[in-house]
């Protein structure tokens, strides 16, 4: 299927996990995808995977917390492609700490990546999308941003902020034809999730109604829907994709 034929997308944090799956699926659906990651070369395998898709991948290496670099990136997209149809704010970090053990420096880092970078990219993308009077912004939130979770005071707060930003941006940008939605994944099999440790993972599995971890491709499917014209009347929504997980 070519649900995103001719569309221009920017996906942050596309070197691994969910962002990687989103970039791949978008390219398979005909989009020209500017894929972002930090380490030069870390998008090579994505490029190779997408060689024969109807869309294409264009690597854009920058740290999302570097506002000047983010601006350069959007400027490049604007120059090369003249438009931006979809922004996926996916890059995120999840260092866990129990209350009483929270390092302020780490907490700030989490907010830099998970919140402030998202805020900046929403602004930059909106400036391009407003002109074309259309666009879809998709933010990766989390089930813990909705429900909270032990040991995740900082991370859950950052994802709660993502949810609030999504709802506000949707209201503010709707008159310009820009849709803003978030996906709130449950437990998805990626490096980020596995970082909690193998023992904890097997315990957590018992809390998932569907009895298994989600796959990055399953979150990518939700993103594809929100990016496509199939979701043309959907905005300000937080789409849970959690296999009936209890958190």
């Amino acid at each position, binding site marked *: 299927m070519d649900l995103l034929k001719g569309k221009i997308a920017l996906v942050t944090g596309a070197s691994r996990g969910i962002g990687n799956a989103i970039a791949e699926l978008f390219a398979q659906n005909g989009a020209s995808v500017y894929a972002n990651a930090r380490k030069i070369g870390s998008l090579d395998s994505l490029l190779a995977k997408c060689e024969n898709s109807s869309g294409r991948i264009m690597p854009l290496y920058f740290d999302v917390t570097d*506002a000047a670099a983010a*601006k350069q990136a*959007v*400027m490049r997209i604007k120059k090369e492609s003249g438009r931006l149809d979809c922004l996926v704010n996916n890059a995120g970090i999840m260092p866990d700490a129990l209350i009483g053990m929270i390092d302020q420096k780490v907490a700030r880092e989490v907010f830099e990546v998970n919140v402030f970078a998202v805020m*900046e990219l929403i*602004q930059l993308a*909106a*400036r*391009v999308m*407003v*002109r074309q009077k259309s666009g879809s912004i998709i933010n990766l939130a989390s089930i813990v941003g909705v429900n909270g979770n032990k040991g995740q005071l900082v991370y859950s707060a950052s994802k709660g902020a993502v949810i609030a930003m999504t709802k506000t941006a949707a209201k*503010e*940008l709707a*008159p*310009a034809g820009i849709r803003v939605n978030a996906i709130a994944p449950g437990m998805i099999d990626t490096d980020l999730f596995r970082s909690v440790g193998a023992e904890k993972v097997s315990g957590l599995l018992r809390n998932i109604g569907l009895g298994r971890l989600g796959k990055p491709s399953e979150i990518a499917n939700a993103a594809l829907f929100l990016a496509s014209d199939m979701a043309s009347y959907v905005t300000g929504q937080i789409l849970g994709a959690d296999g009936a997980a209890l958190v």
Partner: protein
Amino acid sequence: MNHSEKYEAAFVSALGISKDDLPGLQYQGVAAWDSIGHMQLIFALEEAFGIMLDTSDIIDLSSFEKGKELLRKYDVEL
């Protein structure tokens, strides 16, 4: 078009107003110059002069006159 004409044309096209409305025009002084109109204006100015404005300047661009002053930072003399 010289720089001044380009500058005026950006306001006229982005906000859908007439050239006569420009002198003394302030942010939110006309219905079209709201937050969406502001983004459209920024895009139009960036396109016209091949620049990308810093967020601090976007926030500062509060009037037709102020914009001229800000553009000087980007080597655009009006």
